[in-house]
């Protein structure tokens, strides 16, 4: 059974999406499926028929460009393994709630683990 994550990375060469734990704990492989942040390591490909998949490459090429530049400018990245998942999750939050409170931002990002830069600053960024 092919996972969506494998098809994105190996089949389509879209390596922006990262594999962290591969079992749905870390959030690194988050993509948008019909606009909803979803862990691509847990999604079998056959569940994706007719659905819209957006990866970090997709949103970077489109409306999220300014958002990503702010992310970089404020240092919201270190090793980068968790970053695509955090970007996708934060972008999805901003789509449904353009002005989230700090608590709402923390709640939204609770499933994205980060081990280097300290995710404490992310909601400010």
């Amino acid at each position: 059974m092919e996972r969506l994550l494998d098809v994105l990375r190996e089949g389509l060469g879209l390596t922006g999406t990262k594999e962290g734990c591969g079992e749905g704990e870390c959030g690194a492989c988050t993509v948008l499926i019909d606009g909803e942040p979803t862990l691509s390591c847990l999604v079998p490909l056959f569940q994706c028929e007719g659905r819209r998949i957006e990866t970090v490459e997709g949103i970077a090429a489109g409306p999220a460009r300014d958002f990503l530049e702010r992310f970089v400018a404020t240092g919201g990245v270190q090793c980068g393994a968790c970053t695509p998942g955090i970007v996708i999750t934060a972008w999805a939050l901003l789509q449904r709630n353009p002005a989230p409170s700090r608590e709402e931002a923390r709640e939204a990002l609770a499933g994205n683990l980060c081990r280097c830069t300290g995710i404490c600053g992310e909601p400010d960024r």
Partner: protein
Amino acid sequence: MKSPVTARLRADGRIEVLTAMTDMGQGCAAVFPQIARAAGGLGEDDVVFAEPDTGDVPDSGPTVASRTTMIVGNLIARTVAELRDSILDPIVGEGLSVSDGWIVGPAGPVEPFRDAARRHFETAGPLEITHRHEPPEWQTFDESTYQGAAYPTYAWGADVVEVEVDPDTLAARPVAATAVCEVGRAIHPTLCKGQIEGGTLQALGWALLEEVKLQDGRYLNDRLATYIIPTIKDSPRIDVHLLERAWKGGPFGAKGVGELPMDGGAPATAQAVENATGIPVEEIPATPEKLLLASSSPVGAALCGRAGWGGGANGKNAASEKTGRPHRAAPTENEVLP
């Protein structure tokens, strides 16, 4: 560790720096070019760094501990500056220097450094300089006993952690952390603060959540579902303050800051928990289970069938068996202890 670093003049007039250092996120891919450009007076595109492929680069030691910026960065500064001088020397003219990629004389800019460097390659051929780390004479380290001074200097830090402890469950939560680090000089302040934020959060996880459990030599919690690390919801605001007092042995005064952020956060957290509960914290992570056992509460002993590190069911204010310290009476002791 001799840590050779090489700088090489390329045919296109750019300087290529070869080290074995790997950027796994700590930021040397940003910091090394900064050091090389500043040391050589070079422009944005005048320096390139070789990929750290061990087939190509010298063995400048492992990318570990707190040595990359301080030790290898310093060698980069020396090597690049000397290569620049070797290129500059044959050029006729007094008082030449290099600034922002331009050769500058008394009357102002003369020509781009890269043009002169390309000419040097055409006339004199390849040029390469290698420098090795030479520890100061007083710094000795015995490789067989691992004793002595591993580094010529250290960065220093102080941590303040504030916690809230639930009096019913003894679950502790960090609400604020402050890390003050004397780093010599921050080459890239954003990355330097990021390293300290991340290390501090890891230290808070170590103090309250993270425990490697082994049985018969095997990990019992070998995955993120069972080995719990802090999420954003466990992370307090972390205030980082950099103190900069340039150290003459480091590149532009920088000391190593890799490991330092992990050192102080856990002891500070343990003391904050002790201060809040009156329960002496002699082991981390200070989980509710361990705190209950360590408390003088009979509940802990009854639930767990044994005394904890704080003397178990011997009653309030029993002295710790390990340290002989009396339990400290916290202001809210009656509310806190179950």
